[in-house]
């Protein structure tokens, strides 16, 4: 089901002072694919997403979306094109109830353009649409959870709320920054089908992840970063087999375990 490349990054470089956080990293994602980005802490994964989505200004390099240059556009313009992201440290609106959190993305120019959630045409009541999206993403509609203040929601729901904010924009691609981190095993188990469903709905995903087991279950291709440089890229199996990756990232014990799974 993979189409042509939807998002392409060419030689993205980001220097913080003298430190090269990203050194000429290039990658592309094909339409409908799931690209995993892995790497040790501080290897530049989040910086890469920040550069691509315009949240920080890259030092050099280019980003293309469907062949169109989006380098150095402001973040809201990039989001407006359908390139959405989640934050590793969740960024809900704590003073608002969960469903009211979605009124904000539904108020955006893109949501107004793309019409109602599945409704087509003009948006109905944004509250109702918000609750519908929350239900899709795993908030129980008839419980009090969607109506609770975001400040009182547990991590699992906040991670889902991050995804819901992206979905409210009817995205073409979602860049997920560690959606599985901080979740319990059972919560992760319930998130995986959600990710698979998003892919089936035609949304392209880029996932930064430390939970390799779950990532390799869903990802079509994986890219490995280390010290701001791209180490390798390929299918999960190819990446696993790569000697450089083993040395740089996994350590001897874990690689056995994940290998046996893959």
């Amino acid at each position, binding site marked *: 089901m993979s189409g042509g490349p939807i998002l392409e990054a060419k030689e993205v470089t980001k220097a913080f002072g003298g430190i090269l956080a990203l050194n000429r990293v290039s990658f592309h994602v094909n339409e409908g694919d799931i690209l995993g980005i892995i790497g040790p802490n501080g290897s530049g994964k989040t910086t890469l997403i920040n550069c691509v*989505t315009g*949240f920080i200004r890259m030092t050099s390099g280019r980003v293309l979306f469907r062949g169109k240059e989006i380098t150095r556009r*402001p*973040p*809201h313009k990039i*989001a*407006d094109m359908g390139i*959405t*992201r989640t*934050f590793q440290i969740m*960024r*809900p*609106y*704590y*003073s*608002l109830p969960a469903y*009211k959190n979605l*009124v*904000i*993305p*539904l*108020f*955006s*120019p*893109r*949501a107004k353009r793309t019409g109602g959630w599945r409704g087509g045409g003009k948006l109905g009541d*944004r509250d109702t649409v918000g609750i519908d999206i929350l239900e899709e993403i795993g908030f129980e509609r008839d419980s009090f959870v969607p109506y609770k203040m975001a400040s009182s929601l547990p991590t699992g729901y906040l991670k889902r709320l991050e995804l819901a*904010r*992206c979905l*409210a*924009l009817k995205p073409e691609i979602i860049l997920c920054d560690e959606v599985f981190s901080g979740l319990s095993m059972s919560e992760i188990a319930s998130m995986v089908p959600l990710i698979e469903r998003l892919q089936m709905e035609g949304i392209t995903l880029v996932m930064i992840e430390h939970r390799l087991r779950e990532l390799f279950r869903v990802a079509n291709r994986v890219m490995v970063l280390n010290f701001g440089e791209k180490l390798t890229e390929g299918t999960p199996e190819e990446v696993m087999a790569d000697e450089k990756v083993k040395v740089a990232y996994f350590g001897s014990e874990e690689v056995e375990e994940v290998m046996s799974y893959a």
Partner: protein
Amino acid sequence: MHTEERRKERLDRGIKVRTVGIYSLMSWRELSYLTVPRVVLILGMLLLPLIMPSMYWQRVISIVCIYALLALSFDFLAHYVGLVSLGGAFFIGTGGYLAAILNTSFGLPFYLTIPIATIVGAVICTGFLLPCLPLRGVYFAIVTLMYPLVLGRIIEALNVLGGTDGIVGVASFPNRWLEQYFMILMVLLFLFGMRRLVNMDVGLVFRAVKDNDQAVKASGMSITFYKAVAVFIASTMGCLGGACLVHIYMWSGISQFALDFSIIPIAATVIGGGGTLVGAVLGCFILVPISELLRTFGTLRIVFYSLILVGFIVLRSEGVMVYGQRKYHQFERWVKV
């Protein structure tokens, strides 16, 4: 080790929960629970000019209303958009000088100068503040504090717009009843208008900008644009106050860039309760008359004034309205731990 044996529990009153939705229409009791506080406020403000003992105190009502507009603008920007504004004097001065120029140079009557000065003044203020809107933090406060000082000095040094004498001979309101009721109606209009606005969808976007501007960017919206809209709304209130002020005093001068217009609204919001909007208005109705009463003490009044402020901050730091709303909507009881 000492441990607390009981704690205070706060619960919403049943009637508060019952009156949230359409069910409030079920009985007179529930209806009046919702309407009585609003009716008391509206009637109380409309009756004020009638019960004031003298012309002097009637004039004070108009001035209180101008401060109330400024306090509303401060409360809205600070607690719903996250911009701490010290720009009361900037808004008053811009609106005031515009209205004075329109009236004396172009001969426009007050019912044209006030709306024109309000809208044009708000556009000018927003334009001046635009460069610091993309920044986060203290910059907005600094810049809003700087403009009134700069403009006041420019007028003084270059001797433009009447220099230190100001612009004299501005037409007054036709009569004092029109003046007072116009001011009171404007305050009520903006008070209920702002309360409605902050709960509308666009109001939620403003609150989201305060809560988490990165997430608003990630939602495909320009935070600078929404901040600019919010500053425009806030400066509309301020410029309206300024335009009315020059027609009340029949004079426009550098003292309209005085810091009183920036500081008193903030103090009033603290006393009234930040984030309630009503509190900001009530705070002005407490603070401004007190400062008038203290005039008899001469320069000592600043001491009394400070004591009252400190007392409020120490004893009721949440503000009168937050306290009042809590008592009205909730009951408290002690429970064993």
